[in-house]
C-alpha cells in the first residue's frame, strides 16, 4: 500500500512557497533599506539594517494602536460572549412559546452583510455622539457577533445532559446558580472557541473603525497600517517592517489558539 509521496510533497512545497514567500519577503525586506530592496529583492539583507524595526517600535503610535486594538478586542469579546451565553442558555434549556422564532431571528443575522448596515450605523453613532468613541466599535461588533456565538454556544449547552441540571435543581440550585456555577464552567472549551473567534474578528476589523475613528489617537492597528503606507509610500522597507510587527500578535495568537480558532471556524461553517 505504500505509494510514492514525492509528488505530493512537491505540490505541498509549491503551495507552501506561494503562501510563505510574501511573508518571508516582508520579514527580510524590513531588514533592508529601500535601495537594497530594489537592487537585491530576493537575497538576504547585507548588511542587516535593524533601523526600520527599532524606529517603528520606538514610535508611540505603534504601541497606541496596539493598545487600542487590544482594548477593543477584549471588550468586544466580553460583551459578545456574555450576552450570547445568557441568550444561548435560554434557547438551549428552556421551553417556551416563540423560542424557535426568536432563535431564527438571531440566526437570520448571519445573512445580513455588515456592509449593508454601515451607513445607518454611522449616522446613528454620529447622532448618539459615539464617533471617535471605542464603544461605537465595540457595541456594533458585539451585535454582529451575536448570531454565530449564540448558535455555537446553544449547541454546546444542549449537549450537557439534563440529569446534571435535575441533580442541581434537587440540590436547591436555581436557574441563575445553575447557569453561573455549573453550565458556564462546563462550557469552558466552547467559551474559549467563541472568544477566539470574537478576538480575531475584532482585531482584523477595518471597515467599522475606518468610519468611526477620525482622530488618530483612537486608531486601531489596521487603520494605522493603512495610514502608515500612505505616509511612507516611497519607503517600502519601513512599511514592511511595520507590517511584520503588526503580524506578530496575530500569528502569535494563532500559534497559541490554533485549535480553538479552527474548531470554531469549522463549527461555525458547518452549523451556520
Amino acid at each position: 500500500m505504500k505509494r510514492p509521496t514525492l509528488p505530493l510533497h512537491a505540490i505541498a512545497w509549491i503551495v507552501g512557497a506561494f503562501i510563505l514567500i510574501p511573508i518571508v519577503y516582508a520579514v527580510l525586506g524590513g531588514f533592508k533599506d529601500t535601495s537594497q530592496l530594489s537592487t537585491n529583492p530576493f537575497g538576504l539583507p547585507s548588511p542587516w539594517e535593524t533601523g526600520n524595526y527599532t524606529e517603528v517600535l520606538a514610535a508611540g503610535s505603534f504601541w497606541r494602536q496596539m493598545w487600542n486594538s487590544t482594548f477593543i478586542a477584549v471588550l468586544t469579546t466580553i460583551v459578545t460572549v456574555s450576552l450570547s451565553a445568557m441568550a444561548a442558555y435560554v434557547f438551549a434549556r428552556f421551553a417556551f412559546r416563540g423560542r424557535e422564532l426568536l432563535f431564527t431571528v438571531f440566526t437570520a443575522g448571519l445573512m445580513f452583510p455588515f456592509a449593508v448596515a454601515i451607513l445607518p450605523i454611522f449616522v446613528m453613532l454620529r447622532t448618539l455622539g459615539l464617533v471617535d468613541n471605542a464603544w461605537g466599535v465595540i457595541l456594533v461588533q458585539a451585535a454582529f457577533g451575536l448570531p454565530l456565538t449564540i448558535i455555537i454556544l446553544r449547541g454546546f449547552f444542549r449537549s450537557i445532559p439534563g440529569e446534571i441540571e435535575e441533580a442541581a435543581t434537587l440540590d436547591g440550585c436555581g436557574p441563575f446558580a445553575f447557569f453561573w456555577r455549573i453550565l458556564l464552567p462546563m462550557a469552558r472549551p466552547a467559551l474559549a472557541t467563541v472568544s477566539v473567534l470574537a478576538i480575531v474578528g475584532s482585531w482584523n476589523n477595518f471597515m467599522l473603525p475606518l468610519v468611526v475613528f477620525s482622530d488618530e489617537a483612537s486608531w486601531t492597528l489596521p487603520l494605522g497600517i493603512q495610514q502608515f503606507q500612505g505616509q511612507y509610500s516611497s519607503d517600502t522597507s519601513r512599511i514592511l517592517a511595520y507590517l511584520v510587527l503588526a503580524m506578530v500578535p496575530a500569528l502569535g495568537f494563532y500559534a497559541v489558539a490554533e485549535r480553538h480558532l479552527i474548531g470554531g471556524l469549522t463549527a461555525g461553517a458547518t452549523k451556520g
Partner: protein
Amino acid sequence: MTTITRRPEARRLPAHARPNRGRRRSWVTITLFVLPALALFLLLVVAPIVVAVYASGFKWNGFGGLPTDFIGFDNFTRLLESEIFFTDMWHLLVLVLLCLVVQLPMALGIAMLLNQRIRGRAIYRLVFFSPYVLSEVITGVLFSLILSPTSGLANGILGLVGLESDFLADQDTALMSLFVVMTWKYFGFHMMIYLAGRQNIPNELLEAARIDGATGWEVFRHVTLPLLGPTIRISVFLSVIYTIQLFDLVWILTEGGPAHSTETLAVTMFDIGFGRSQVGYASAISVVMFVLSLVFALGYQRFVMRRDLEGATTAMGDTR
C-alpha cells in the same frame, strides 16, 4: 424502565421550566437572559438594515434626523441606469466563478493531499491556514507592495522569465491580481473546512470501496466527493456571501480602480455614501446587496442545501 422512556423529555425540559414548577419565575429568567442580547441585536443589526431600506427611498445627505425628501424608487432607477452597477455585478460574477473553478477545487485538492499520511502535514496545515488570521489590511498592503509594477517582488520574479505585468495598475489585469490575493488569503480557510468534513467520513467506507477494487480516483469520485457534498455546498455558500460584500481587500489594494476595474458593490456604496455624502443613493446600493444576499441565501438553502439541513440541525447538539 420509566427513566429510559422519559429521558429525552427530561433533556429538553429542565425541571424549573416544566409547567408544574414556577412558570412565572421561568418567564422572568427568560426575559432577563434574552433581553440584553435581543436589544443589542435589534438596535444595531436589525434597525440599521431597516433604516437602510427606508433611506433608499429618499434623497438624503445623512444629516438632520430622518430623511424627508421622498423620491420613491428614483435611487434604484438611477442605479440601474448607471454603468458602474453593471460593472460591479460583472465583477461579482467573475470573482464568484473564479472561486468556484479555481480557489475551491484547489482548496479541496490540497485538503485531500494533507489528509494523506505525508510527513510534516501538521506544519503544512499550519502554514496554509496562516494567511487567514492576518487582517485584510495587512494582506492588502503587503500585496500592494509585492505587486508594485516598478519595485515589487512579483515582477522581480516574473521578470526572470520575461512575464512582467502591471498587475493592479493595469485595468486588464487588476481583477485577476485581486483574485490571486483573495486566493492567497482565503483558500486555507476552505481547506480547513474540507479537512474537517473529510475527517467526518468513516474510513471503513473508503476501505470497503478499495477492497471492491476501486482505484484512488474512483474512491474519491464516487465515495469521498459525494460524502463531502454538504461541506462543499457550505463552502460555496460562504464564498458567494463573502464576495457579495467584498470591501476591505479592494479598498486597500486599489480603492476600486484603475478606472473602476476592481470595483465592487460595497466599494461603490462606500464611495457614494461616505465620499460624496449621498446617503440615500448609497442606501439603495446597500439594499441591492442585502436583497442579493437574502435571495441567494434563501434560494440556496431551499434548492441546494435542502438535503443537508436536516442532518445539520440534528447533528447540532451531538457534535461535541
